[in-house]
């Protein structure tokens, strides 16, 4: 059953049937001159009362209600006649609104489908990049401000690196390098956070460093850094249960876009589209619609 529910053709048929019904309701009754029927249902009357109450903060009097109903009948007559006269054609707002309504219907049909865990797992695997837990780094860094070293930057960096290598993990960082607003030690910082704080360039270089020793210089937007990565946790794809809500959100969105596109493509099959090309201006030629 689930399989059938997901079948685009079924959606298409459902929509088609729906549209047909709408068309049937909207069109004039037969070819005869018999009068068309307008029925104002109890539900519609309740709706009128509701709207009035919200706007005026009280229910309508019986006279006002009679007025509302009279107006509703008038609206119905005018609507039917206006459509019969084709007044809805070539009206940008009505056309946009109709398109939007149909898009809403196709959105809703897409939303009807409840994905199984298997569906979501497939999506998760196929779009691993969206959900991956990024690489994490536990590292120390010492900063050198280029403004403070000028021409001696390379020499000072090399000297500091030699000293850090000698001290290894016993170096007292609180006294080394230049004062810097960001921390010197980070524990299990995701690569995306490294990029936010130090910039993309620095983050990219960090993943190339082998853990355990002082290395550098590593450049950032601020200047140069000497870095010791003590631990690197590789990124991984989380289990579905950990990210189910996010996967569902993205799956819904992908499903919606796909269903809308499929719906459009199916409708488009009923039409042959020809576009008149401007003869004089070849650069404004319009590509075939697909």
């Amino acid at each position, binding site marked *: 059953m689930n399989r059938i529910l997901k079948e685009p053709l079924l959606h298409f048929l459902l929509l088609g049937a729906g549209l047909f019904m709408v068309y049937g309701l909207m069109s004039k009754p037969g070819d005869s001159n018999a009068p068309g029927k307008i029925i104002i249902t109890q539900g519609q009357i309740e709706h009128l009362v509701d709207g009035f109450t919200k*706007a005026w903060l009280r229910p309508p009097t019986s006279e006002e209600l009679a007025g509302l109903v009279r107006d509703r009948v008038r609206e119905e007559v005018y609507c039917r006649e206006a459509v019969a006269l084709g007044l809805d054609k070539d009206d940008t707002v009505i056309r946009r609104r109709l398109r939007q309504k149909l898009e809403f219907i196709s959105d809703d049909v897409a939303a009807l489908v409840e994905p199984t865990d298997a569906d979501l797992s497939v999506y998760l695997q196929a779009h691993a990049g969206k959900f991956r837990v990024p690489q994490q780094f536990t590292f120390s860094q010492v900063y050198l401000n280029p*403004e403070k070293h000028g021409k001696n930057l390379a020499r*000072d960096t090399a000297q500091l690196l030699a000293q850090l290598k000698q001290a290894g993990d016993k170096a007292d960082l609180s006294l080394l390098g230049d004062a810097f607003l960001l921390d010197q030690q980070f524990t299990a910082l995701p690569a995306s956070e490294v990029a936010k704080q130090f910039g993309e360039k620095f983050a990219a270089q960090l993943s190339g460093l082998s853990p355990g020793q002082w290395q550098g210089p590593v450049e950032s937007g601020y200047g140069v850094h000497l870095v010791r990565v003590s631990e690197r946790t590789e990124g991984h794809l989380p289990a579905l249960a950990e990210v189910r809500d996010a996967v569902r959100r993205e799956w819904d969105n992908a499903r919606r876009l796909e269903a809308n596109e499929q719906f459009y493509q199916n409708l488009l099959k009923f039409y042959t589209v020809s576009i008149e090309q401007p003869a004089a201006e070849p650069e404004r030629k319009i590509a075939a619609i697909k």
Partner: protein
Amino acid sequence: MIIAGFALLTFAAEQTDTGTADQATLEKVMPTKPAYSPYVGRNFPTRPLFGDQHLHTAFSMDAGAFGCRLGPREAYRFARGEEVISSTGQPVKLSRPLDWLVVSDHSDGFGFFPQLMGGDPELLATPQGRKWYDQIKSGHGAEAAMDIIVSFGQGKMPKGFPLPGTRAYRGAWQEIINAAEAFNDPGRFTAIIGYEWTSNTGGNNLHRNVLFRENGAKASLVEPFTTMKPLGSDNPEDLWKWMAATEEKTGSEVLAIAHNGNLSNGRMFPTVEAFGKKIDREYCETRLKWERLYEVTQTKGTGEAHPYLSPNDEFANFEIWDKANLDGSVPKTKDMLEFEYARSAYKNGLKLEEQFGANPYKFGLVSGSDAHTALSAMEEDNFFGKTTPQEPSSERLTKAFINNPKTGVTVMDWEVGASGYAAVWATENTRAAIFDAMKRRETYSTTGPRMAVRFFGGWNFEAEDANNRLPAALGYTKGVPMGGDLPDAPAGKSPTFLVAALKDPMGANLDRIQVIKGWLDAQGEVHEQIHNVVWGDADKRKPDAKGKLPPVGDTVDVENATWSNTIGDPELITVWKDPNFDAKQRAFYYVRVLEIPTPRWTAYDVKRFGNKALPGTTMKLQERAYTSPIWYTPGT
């Protein structure tokens, strides 16, 4: 000034002058060895979280009329760093994700636009509704949008306008909530639920964004406060009543952030009366309780200081909008300015506190974009405009944004600023942590770049603290952060401040840091003074006798829309002591950080479209950050 703190040849054993007394205190706050558990750690914020608390989508009636077709979900997608297609069909992506976002659509008329476009008979029966419908239909949506804003400001909206309680209204609010719930991802990206209350009577801007601390289940218990009577009101005091009732009803704290005092025509920061009522102690206390922050910069101009009010401030003339109120219906007069800008509000707040015992203008600073495109794209080289017609195009440099034929007030599109983002020193990236940091005003405002700015005040900071490798830990140990209050003054001491800024990792170097002080003297007069406290290229730049610093220079190549970081410094840090402190005088101190000059969005436009800007168009700027103040109150 600081001494360069390069300790290349010194090791711990040989070095004692960073203050061993501090070391023990520091280790408590921040152990030098990482704990086994990565979650054990510091109890203070370590990184500013950048976001936007002011963004409109197609759900706002004017944004819809302007042609915005993207809703709250697309807004969150974009802010999270994904590529989206804009309403004008252009692909767009941020240089890097934001950390948080508030979608703040206008509460008046949620659902108005779909209703109008759907040809609602009641709306179309009105001459206005008919006119807007026809305008939009014939491709003049921008004119319709301006007219809707004006009519709204003048209280002339047509019958049939959707009100709270209607299905269209509830549906729109619920979708705004649902979108925030779907994209809120604690620890990575925070979606805060909110809306804008758009009090605009007579075209005078008194708008406020309202933010919820808690989740959608609680926010759904109420519908937003509107300005249309009888359900709503245009008086901020009624909004505060609604906020109190909302906290009671939902169990969620709320706060309000006002913006664009520059378009309020002297009504944003009143000192004598508001809405026909005298300012009194209750007004001061209530405003202080609900309005903890102010949006000091956004696309419609910057509201920190005005050159007329601060003639000695060489940087006050920055992205100023001072021609009129929001719809251009009443031109500006100079006497209005004092009640529109943050710095003068801070000064008048000291007076009101002296008078009533409470300071209504003790607010912190944030930025917002106020974009009506669902795109918080405020980078100069990636600016997607304030409204949909202002998305990138070869025409946007030459069109008018506001044009009031009656008064002749015109504001051009090029005057719109690519500004800005709000930085919040929250302990973690969650709704609660961000909201709490906002409430304690530990925030600052930037005109777009993501520089990190620290500002601590206390009585015992010493010059060498600027060389410390753990300035933040030291700051919290020895002082209070931005947004806080200095504790009682020890006899004979002057306040000291640890001030630091680090450039945007992708951005321009820094020109200087300034501390701006305001105070109330014994005669009841208020004053302000600007101190340059630390600057780039300090080996070459020396202040003159009056403390004025030579300009940092200018590397901008307007034609190619480029610059180079060959001037200025990537980082500035110092300890500053107030040289003129009087323990009997109320005072406030806040920080302004300036970047070196860079190309403005207008320069990138000319470069990319190969067109011409109008004469007089500003083509470069010095981006900046403004922190929340630290206040001093005698005898506290």
